[in-house]
C-alpha cells in the first residue's frame, strides 16, 4: 500500500514531513511489524517546471500533427511547439523550461521544430513521472495559479511510504490504520477528523433489507442530490495517483479516497437508476438475469454469492464490484453511497471463484471495522457536497441488527512471563497496549482484562495480546538465551545415511551432482517408458513443461546432458538423488532414487608430457566405469551385494536391447543399468552414446547393513595362476565365476578379470576370450604346487564340461 507522509500527517500533525523523517518513520514501522520502505522517487528537476496557461493554439505551417502554442508563465508569453491533441486555449498546464532535465537525462533546449522556434515543453503525466498517461498533455484545474512551481499541485514534494501489510493486519490497510500504529510508536496523540455533515431535510424513499445478516452484518447508505459529476481537483488527483490509483471522476475518486483514508470500502450508485423502493442484500438466485460488472465482464455466479439488488435484480456483487446497470456516469445527478460490512469468508469465496481481486474485496476479506461505516459515509457525502455542490439527504439508512461489540480478553501475567521469558508488571503491560487503543477494563493481581477495539479483528485470544506486548516492547530488546534441552538427539536415519554415503561414493567416482525440477512434461515421461496411468499430474501447472511429477530421474539428467553437450562439454558424468512419484489411492507414492548418466566422449582431463606416468592414462569411459561407480557406492555402504542380470528391456523401456541389465536384490528388482536407446537420445538431442543406471534407495535402505569386520592378513604366500579361456560370447561372466569358485574349492581366495576379447583372432565370431588372475591361498599353511595345479585343472575341466570352454593357446 502506498501512502504519502502529508496524508498521514493529517492524523498526526507531524512537525516534519520531509524525506529524512519518512526514512526514520519507515524504519520504526518496519521494526514494529509493518514492512515499510520509502519509495525512491525519481527526483524531478522541479526548479525548471512552472504552471502556465495556454493563451493561443495555431496549426504548425509545416506539420499536420504539430501545434504552435503560446503560453503565459506568469512573467512572459512564449511559443512552444507541441504534438499533443488536447491543447486548447485556457488550459492550465505544466511547462518544462529550457534547461529542464528529465529523469532519463534528456535535456530541454530552445530549438527549432520544422522551422519554428520552440521554447520549452508542455508535459504529460508520464513525462512528469506521476502517471502512465501519455495520450496528451496533463491539464490542471482552472483555478490553478500560474507562474508557480507545480510541486504542491502535483504532490511532488510529499514522500511516499510503501507498506506491505501482512494478512492479519487489515486495520493497517488505510492511512488511519498506519496513523494509529505510528501514533503508538511516535507517542503522539492521533486526531481523527471530525466530519460535520451539512445536510438538508431531503428524505430518501429507499429501504434497506438484509436477508443474509451473517454475510452482511451491517449495511449503511446515504444519498446526495443534484451533484455535478466532473473531474476531481488537483489535490485529490495527486493523492490518488500517489497511492497508485487512477483518477476517474469526482464521485468515484471520493469513494477511493475515503477507502484509502479510513479503510472502509465504499460504493456509489446512480440513485435514479435504482428500480423500486428497496435495496435488498441477498444471495444470488437462479432466476437473476446475468450480472455485468463495472469492468464490462459477465461473471458466472451461484447461490453462494452475496448480491446487492434492487427490485429488478442484482446491481452489485457485494464487497467486490459494482454493476454497470447502476453505475455513476457523466449524467448522474443523484447518488446513493454504500458503506457496508461484509463477512470475510463470504467475500473470499466469491473473489476466489471469479478470480477478481479489487481494493474493496482485498479489505473485506481481511476484515474491516464494522463500526466505521458511518464515519466513512459521512466523510464521503460531505466531501461530495464540497466538490459538487450537491445536497446531502438527512436520512442515514443503517441496518445493523446485531451490533458487533469489542471483545474482551483476559491476560494472565504468568502466561506472558512463561512465553516471553520476561516478567512484566501490570503497569508495563498497560503502557504497551493502551497506545494501541487496547484498554484495560479490569485489573487483578495476576491477570488483566482488556477490551479490543473492533478495528482489530486479528486479536481474539490471549496469545494475540502476548504478541502485541512483544511487538510493542520491540523484539530486539529481548534478552537472548539458549534453551536447556531435555531431549537427546536421535541417531541419523538409515535412509539419510544411505543417501549421504551414496552421494559421497558418486562424487569420489568423478560424477557431478545435479538437481532438477520434480515436474516435467508428460510426453518426456512417456518417451522414457512411463506408464501414463501412473503419472501424477498437477491441476494448475506453471506450464505444460512442468505439468507432471517425474517417474524417473532420467528426464532431468538427459536434459542436462543435452545442455552441457551444447556448451561443448566433452566429459559428462552426472548423478541425481531425488524423489520420483507414482499415482496411488490418496497420496502419491514417493521413491527416493539415485540415477547417473555417463557420456562416452574422448577427454583429456590432465595435462601430459608423454612420459609422465598417469599423465596420459585414458580414463575408462564405458558403461563399466558407470557400473564401477555403483559398485563403489555398495562398497561405501558395505552393502552385501546386488545381482546384475542380463535381460531384455521392455519395448517401452528407454534402454537399448542387448546392453541392459536388471539390478536385483534378493530376487526383487531395485534398479536397472544399460545404454539408452537411440530414439530416446534423439528426443533429447543427444548425439553421443550414453549409459545410465537408476536405483531405488528406499528398497536398499530396507536391507540390514553389517559393520565391516577386519579380515586376517595372509601369513602364508599366495600362488597366482592366469586362466585364459575361449567360450561362447553369451555366457555371462557371473556364471563363469560361479563355476570357477565352485570347482576350485576353498583354497581360491580371489578371482580378477583382466581381459575380455572378441575379435578376428578367434576362430568363431560367436566366441569370446576371457582371462582371469586366480589367487590361491591357504590361511593355515603354505600351499603346495600340486594342490594348486589340481584345483586349476578341476576349474578348466568344469568350464569345459559346462560351457565347452577351452584354454586359449
Amino acid at each position, binding site marked *: 500500500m502506498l501512502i504519502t507522509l502529508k496524508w498521514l500527517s493529517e492524523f498526526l500533525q507531524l512537525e516534519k514531513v520531509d524525506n529524512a523523517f519518512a526514512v526514520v518513520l519507515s524504519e520504526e514501522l518496519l*521494526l*514494529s*511489524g509493518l514492512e515499510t520502505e520509502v519509495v525512491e522517487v525519481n527526483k524531478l528537476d522541479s526548479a525548471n517546471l512552472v504552471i502556465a496557461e495556454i493563451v493561443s493554439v495555431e496549426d504548425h505551417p509545416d506539420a499536420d500533427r504539430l501545434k504552435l502554442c503560446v503560453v503565459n508563465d506568469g512573467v512572459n508569453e512564449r511559443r512552444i511547439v507541441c504534438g499533443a491533441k488536447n491543447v486548447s486555449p485556457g488550459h492550465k498546464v505544466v511547462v518544462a523550461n529550457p534547461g529542464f532535465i528529465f529523469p532519463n537525462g534528456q535535456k530541454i533546449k530552445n530549438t527549432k521544430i520544422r522551422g519554428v522556434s520552440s521554447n520549452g515543453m508542455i508535459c504529460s503525466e508520464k513525462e512528469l513521472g506521476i502517471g502512465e498517461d501519455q495520450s496528451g498533455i496533463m491539464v490542471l484545474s482552472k483555478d490553478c495559479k500560474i507562474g508557480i512551481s507545480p510541486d504542491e499541485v502535483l504532490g511532488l514534494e510529499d514522500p511516499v511510504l510503501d507498506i506491505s501489510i*501482512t*494478512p492479519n493486519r487489515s486495520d493497517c490497510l488505510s492511512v488511519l490504520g498506519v496513523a494509529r500504529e505510528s501514533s503508538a510508536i511516535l507517542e503522539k496523540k492521533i486526531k481523527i477528523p471530525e466530519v460535520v455533515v451539512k445536510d438538508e431535510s431531503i428524505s430518501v424513499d429507499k429501504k434497506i433489507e438484509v436477508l443474509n445478516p451473517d454475510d452482511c452484518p451491517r449495511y449503511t447508505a446515504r444519498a446526495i442530490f443534484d451533484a455535478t459529476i466532473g473531474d476531481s481537483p488537483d489535490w485529490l488527483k495527486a493523492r490518488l495517483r500517489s497511492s497508485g490509483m487512477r483518477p476517474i471522476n469526482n464521485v468515484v475518486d471520493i469513494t477511493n479516497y475515503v477507502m484509502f483514508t479510513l479503510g472502509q470500502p465504499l460504493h456509489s450508485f446512480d440513485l435514479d437508476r435504482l428500480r423500486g423502493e428497496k435495496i435488498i442484500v441477498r444471495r444470488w438466485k437462479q432466476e437473476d438475469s446475468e450480472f455485468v460488472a463495472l469492468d464490462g465482464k459477465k461473471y458466472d455466479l451461484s447461490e453462494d454469492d452475496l448480491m446487492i439488488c434492487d427490485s429488478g435484480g442484482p446491481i452489485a456483487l457485494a464487497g467486490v464490484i459494482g454493476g454497470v446497470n447502476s453505475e455513476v456516469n457523466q449524467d448522474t445527478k443523484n447518488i446513493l453511497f454504500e458503506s457496508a460490512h461484509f463477512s470475510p469468508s463470504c467475500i*473470499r*469465496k466469491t473473489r476466489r471463484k471469479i478470480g477478481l481481486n479489487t481494493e474493496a474485496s482485498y479489505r473485506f*476479506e*481481511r476484515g474491516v471495522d464494522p463500526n466505521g461505516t458511518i464515519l466513512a459515509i459521512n466523510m464521503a457525502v460531505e466531501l461530495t457536497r464540497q466538490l459538487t455542490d450537491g445536497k446531502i439527504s438527512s436520512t442515514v439508512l443503517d441496518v445493523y441488527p446485531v451490533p458487533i461489540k469489542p471483545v474482551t480478553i483476559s491476560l494472565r501475567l504468568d502466561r506472558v512471563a*512463561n*512465553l*516471553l*521469558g520476561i516478567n512484566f508488571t501490570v503497569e508495563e503491560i498497560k503502557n504497551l497496549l493502551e497506545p494501541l487503543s487496547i484498554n484495560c477494563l479490569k485489573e487483578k493481581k495476576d491477570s488483566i482484562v482488556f477490551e479490543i477495539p473492533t478495528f482489530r479483528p486479528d486479536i481474539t485470544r490471549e496469545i494475540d495480546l*502476548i*504478541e502485541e506486548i*512483544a*511487538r510493542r516492547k520491540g*523484539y530486539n530488546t529481548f534478552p*537472548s*538465551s*539458549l*534453551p536447556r*534441552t*531435555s*531431549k537427546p*538427539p*536421535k*541417531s*541419523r536415519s538409515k535412509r539419510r545415511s544411505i543417501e549421504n554415503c551414496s*552421494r559421497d561414493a558418486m*562424487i*569420489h567416482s*568423478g560424477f*557431478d*551432482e*545435479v*538437481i*532438477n*525440477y*520434480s515436474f516435467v512434461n508428460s510426453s518426456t515421461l512417456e518417451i522414457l517408458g512411463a506408464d501414463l496411468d501412473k503419472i501424477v499430474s*498437477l*491441476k*494448475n501447472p*506453471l506450464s505444460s513443461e*512442468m505439468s507432471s*511429477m517425474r517417474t524417473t530421474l532420467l528426464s*532431468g539428467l538427459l536434459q542436462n546432458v543435452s*545442455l*552441457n553437450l551444447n556448451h561443448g*562439454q566433452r*566429459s559428462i*558424468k*552426472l548423478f541425481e538423488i531425488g524423489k520420483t512419484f507414482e499415482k496411488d489411492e*490418496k*497420496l*502419491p507414492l*514417493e521413491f527416493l532414487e539415485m540415477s547417473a548418466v555417463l557420456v562416452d566422449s574422448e577427454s583429456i582431463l*590432465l*595435462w601430459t608430457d608423454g612420459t609422465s606416468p598417469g599423465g596420459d592414462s585414458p*580414463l575408462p569411459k564405458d558403461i563399466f566405469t558407470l557400473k564401477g561407480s555403483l559398485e563403489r557406492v555398495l562398497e561405501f555402504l558395505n552393502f552385501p551385494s546386488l545381482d546384475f542380470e542380463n535381460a531384455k528391456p521392455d519395448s517401452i523401456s528407454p534402454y537399448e536391447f542387448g546392453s541392459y541389465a536388471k539390478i536385483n536384490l534378493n530376487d526383487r528388482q531395485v534398479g536397472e543399468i544399460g545404454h539408452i536407446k537411440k530414439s530416446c537420445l534423439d528426443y533429447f538431442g543427444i548425439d553421443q552414446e550414453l549409459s545410465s543406471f537408476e536405483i531405488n534407495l528406499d528398497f536398499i535402505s530396507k536391507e540390514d547393513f553389517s559393520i565391516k569386520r577386519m579380515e586376517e592378513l595372509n601369513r602364508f604366500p599366495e600362488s597366482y595362476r592366469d586362466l585364459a579361456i575361449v567360450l561362447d560370447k553369451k555366457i555371462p561372466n557371473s556364471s563363469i565365476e560361479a563355476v570357477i569358485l565352485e570347482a576350485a574349492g576353498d583354497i581360491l581366495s580371489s578371482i580378477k578379470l583382466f581381459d575380455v576379447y572378441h575379435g578376428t583372432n578367434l576362430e568363431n565370431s560367436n566366441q569370446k576370450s576371457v582371462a582371469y588372475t586366480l589367487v590361491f591361498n591357504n590361511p593355515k599353511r603354505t600351499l603346495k604346487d600340486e594342490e594348486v595345479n589340481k584345483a586349476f585343472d578341476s576349474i578348466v575341466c568344469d568350464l569345459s564340461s559346462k560351457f565347452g570352454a577351452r584354454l586359449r593357446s
Partner: protein
Amino acid sequence: MEIGQVEKIGKEIFESLSESDSLENLDQVRLRYLGRKDGVITQLAKNLKTFDIDQKRLIGPLVNNLRSLIEEFVKEFKRGGRISAIEVLLSAVKLEEGKSLLFEKFEVSVDSLTDSRSENESKKFIDLTIPGKKIPIGHKHPLVQTTEELIEILTRLGYSVAEGPEAELDYFNFEALNIPKDHPARDMQDTFYISEEVLLRTHTSPVQIRVMKSQEPPVKVIAPGKVFRCDADVTHSPMFHQIEGLYVDKNVTFSDLKGTIETFISEIFGPEFRVRLRPSFFPFTEPSAEIDISCDHLANGNWMEVLGAGMIDPAVFEAVGYDPEEWSGFAWGLGVERITMLRYGISDIRLFFENDLRTIRQF
C-alpha cells in the same frame, strides 16, 4: 715433511672426491687415504710425532681436516648422493676462506665443482610452477553443500533430522497449521494442487505436524527438503529447498528462540553478522518474526531477510493434541537457495536447476 707436500695430497683428495661418481669409486678413494694400514692420511698422522713443533702446528690441523672431510663426504654421498656430497667440498672451501690460507693453496677449481653441481641439477630439474595433476572427482551440488552444512550445525545444537512427503495432504500443509480454507494467508503461498485434498507442499512445516502427531513432547527436529510454489522469476523458483526447525519442551521462551537464531546465524555466516528480528505474521506461530542479517562487507551493509520464525501457535498444539498450557516451543524456516545465493554471490535462482557443469564445477 714439507707443508707443500701435504697441500698436494689435499689437492689430490679434493680431485678424487669430486670425481667419484659411485660408492665403489668412493670406497677406493677412502681406502687410499684413510686405509687403516697404509692410507696416505693415516700414515701422515702416524708420522706427525716425528715432525718438529712448527711443522706439527701447521700440518696437524690440516691432516685432521682432510680426514674429516673424507669421512663427511662419504657420509653425505651415502645419504644424499653425489650432488649433496659435492656441497660438502664447496662448503669446506668456503669455510676455510679467511681463516686459513691452506685450502686456497690446493688450487682446487671451485668453478669445476660448481659446474658439476649445475650439471647434476639440470639432470634432475623439475619445474614446480607447472600445475599439479588433479585426479578428477565429482562436485556436490551447491544446494546440497549448504544443506549438509546447515544440518551439521543443527545436529550439533541437538536437532535430529525428520522427513515427510513432498506431495502432501492439504490438512498437514494448511489446516493443521492454523490455515483454514478461506484464510487470506493462503494467498501468501501459491499452491500446486494434485487433487482437491493433495498438493505439493508449499513449505516444510507439514513435517512439524507429522512429527508432533507421531510422538510425545519434547521434540527437537529439523526437516530439510524440497518445497513448491507457483512462482517463477530471478528470485523465485517453482521448486526450492527449505530447512525447518521445531523445538517443543517445557518453558521454552521467546528469548530462547532469539538466542537459538542468533547462535545459528553466527555459525552459518560468521560472528561478524548482525541479526535483527522484526514482527511478522505466520498463521502457525505467534509471536512471529522475520529475521534479517547484515554485515559491513555485504550488500552495502543493508539488512537482508533470511529466516522466518516464531513461537508455536496454541492452535497448532491443539491440532496435534499437545496441551498448549503445558508445552511451548518455537519453529523457524529458511530457504536454502537464499542462503546459498548470499554466501556465494549468486544472483539468479534459476542457475541452481539449470545444471550447467560450468556452474556446478565451481563449487
